[in-house]
């Protein structure tokens, strides 16, 4: 019987880690080179999901379901955070007429 019914044979966890690191690097590049807020939020989601992929791999490696549970919790929290961020940026857009990342320079006070 496999760990979650998904993995049908022995699987190298190094491959999962490699994929996770690659996705994290892609997300960081995308975040650093983003000019719009939506792209920045998508990049943050990519980075969170790479971490969660690593967490699921480790959870499957140790045969402990707590990691998979924590993955579900983190997914929900990330969704809530994205909702709050988008509504904040909509409020900024209404006040300033633009919601690019350069508008956030106003936060310097």
């Amino acid at each position, binding site marked *: *019987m496999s760990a979650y019914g998904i993995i049908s044979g*022995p699987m190298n966890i*190094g491959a999962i880690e490699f994929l996770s*690191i690659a996705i994290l690097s892609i997300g960081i590049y995308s975040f650093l080179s983003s000019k719009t807020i939506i792209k920045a939020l998508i990049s943050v989601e990519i980075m969170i999901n790479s971490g969660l992929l690593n967490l699921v791999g480790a959870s499957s*490696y140790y*045969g402990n379901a707590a990691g998979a549970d924590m993955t579900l919790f983190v997914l929900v929290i990330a969704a*809530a955070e994205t909702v709050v961020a988008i509504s904040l940026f*909509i409020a900024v857009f209404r006040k300033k007429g633009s919601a690019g990342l350069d508008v956030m320079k106003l936060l310097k006070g």
Partner: protein
Amino acid sequence: MKNKLAIILAILLFVVMTTFIQPSAFPNGVISINAGSVGNGAITHLMFTTYILPFEIITFLLLAAMLGAMYLGEREGDK
């Protein structure tokens, strides 16, 4: 300029993590077929017994996020 810096930083992070961190994290780590005792209902069972308190807290977090989004997304005119 900013783009090139982003590419350099991302590649640097990738190389550092794959060469220094990844080999030492799980040495010859292979997820075997009989990996542990995680059965089909284990995730749900844990969520509704051990982690029932975080589960309930998350329901309130979602409610707060929904109310906050409704408040922040409200237009000036229609009250």
